[in-house]
């Protein structure tokens, strides 16, 4: 029965089989990415323009998602918000994963005191709750976009490091690594040509998960008023500024929340539905 169900809900494409849920999730992610890139060209109103006489207006023709607390077009603001939420998170997760994976591979290959010190230090960083870390650092260095990206990246480096190191340590014990060492290859060659190709697929899945964490943390910080500052607004900040709409259940407070949820749930579902071959750590 299980086999029959699996067969019916999976499609074969380019040699891999994909589940329907995974394809839908991928399409949602693709849509948000395109919106993030082309937002300035597709928004119906400028994000600063007051287009409605009423605040927290309902959905109607012309203002498809209602208006916000100043009577600005909510659709335009959500579309532009995608730019900040997706852009900042993507930049942060790229830095976090790149640094974490590089450090992890180097630690696994060299071993010894470098490995011990790095692991101890990053594990300690890992035991600071992420939201708290964000609060303290944002208080210290402010919340400009570069500062936010760096803060978010630093918070998630330890996790990426731990994950990559655990994978790289396994590869490090393989025979081909011993052979490469005996050949006298450099560390750069070892991590670039021997280890990385063997761990890249689980690392990419981890990249996706970490992206979700960062989107959630960024939204949380912005919601507390410590993330992106006005006039810029990401989705978390949109929820914050329209929180007064809650008693009226206006779309202004619901839509940005739904936008965050659609993105994070899609990424989670896509990773869960990746073909086994890509997802498994020991593939």
């Amino acid at each position, binding site marked *: 029965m299980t086999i029959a169900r699996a067969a019916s809900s999976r499609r074969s494409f380019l040699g891999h089989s994909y589940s329907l849920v995974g394809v839908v999730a991928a399409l949602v992610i693709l849509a948000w990415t395109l919106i993030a890139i082309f937002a300035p060209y597709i928004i119906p109103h400028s994000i600063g323009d007051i287009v409605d006489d009423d605040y927290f207006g309902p959905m109607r023709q012309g203002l498809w998602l209602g208006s916000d607390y100043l009577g600005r077009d909510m659709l335009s603001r959500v579309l532009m918000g995608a730019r900040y939420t997706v852009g900042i998170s993507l930049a942060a997760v790229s830095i976090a994963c790149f640094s974490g994976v590089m450090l992890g591979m180097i630690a696994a290959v060299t071993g010894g005191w470098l490995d011990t010190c790095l692991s101890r*230090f990053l594990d300690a960083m890992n035991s600071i709750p992420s939201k708290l870390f964000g609060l303290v650092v944002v208080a210290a260095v402010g919340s400009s976009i570069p500062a936010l990206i760096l803060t978010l990246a630093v918070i998630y480096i330890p996790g990426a490091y731990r994950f990559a190191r655990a994978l790289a340590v396994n590869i490090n014990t393989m025979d081909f690594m011993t052979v490469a060492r005996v050949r006298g290859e450099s560390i750069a060659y070892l991590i670039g040509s021997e280890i990385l190709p063997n761990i890249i697929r689980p690392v990419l899945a981890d990249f996706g998960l970490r992206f979700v964490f960062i989107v959630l943390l960024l939204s949380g910080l912005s919601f507390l*008023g410590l993330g992106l500052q006005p006039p810029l607004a990401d989705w978390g900040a949109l929820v914050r500024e329209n929180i007064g709409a809650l008693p009226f259940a206006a779309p202004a407070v619901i839509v940005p*929340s739904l936008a965050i949820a659609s993105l994070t749930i899609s990424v989670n579902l896509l990773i869960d539905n990746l073909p086994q071959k890509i997802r498994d750590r020991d593939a």
Partner: protein
Amino acid sequence: MTSGVLNLVLKRLAIAVVTLLIVLFAVFFATSMLPGDTASILLGQAATPEAVAGLRDAMHLNDPAILRFLRWLLGLLHGDLGTSYANEMPVAALIGGRFVNTMKLAGITTLLSVPLALTLGITAAMLRGSLYDRTVTIVSIGVISVPEFMVATLAVLLFAVYLKWLPALSSVNEAHSLTDLVRIYAMPVITLTFVISAQMIRMTRAAVIETLSTPYVEMALLKGASRSRMVLRHALPNALGPIVNAVALSLSYLVGGVIIVETIFNYPGIAKLMVDAVATRDLPLIQSCAMIFCLGYLFLITVADIIAIMSNPRLR
């Protein structure tokens, strides 16, 4: 035989202490990077340069950072948390009552979410693949994937706006009767319970499913034990260690959760105090609050690790 476990536990505790020192160091340095000179902020714009210099001296702000860190650490050991910049009150006095409020919130949430999550997690694992299991799994993935403030806003929309059962804001001072108390705590506790339980359900379900796939459970199945006997008598005692571990780990999510929940419901706890302190850049207050949160978090993850070590019979 037991010395092996004892060694591992002691080693884990030593790691916790080292970690604590690094964390305190990180908190101290992050807060000392705050822009602006503390002395001139305190004295206001009309202060003369001499007065600022005098205050800097008196507050030891000219000393090297490492010396200030050691002095702060020594003060902590004496129970001296420093004085708030914003209103000149001792930090300990500011935190005291609010700490109790936060602990109440966390305590009630724990009492509610642990039995709920364990029941759901274990039954979902028993009925693996059923409609019930899939519903529980999908809802818990959903709750994990969205920010805490969204769970809170949805709870407000549902209970305060549509059903009108509960007030959207809580104010602890207005509690006169038991019903008042329930109405005040209901919204924050419901939100936190959702956030914490989702994690716990997933981990518990995974732990039980893993035990259910072991050879001895298969043996129980083959000898004709009933499904509930198989789970309750054979699998559960062995899954207990991982489950308690999962509970402790999930409770550490309380730390992130209370920050959002206290802010959104305007609940007078230390998380709200800290968010306000960040807004006014009140350094000693931020340091102390951050330290309390880190301590709580570190305590929970250390307990989780120690339970994981103790519950592994191969180490005993």
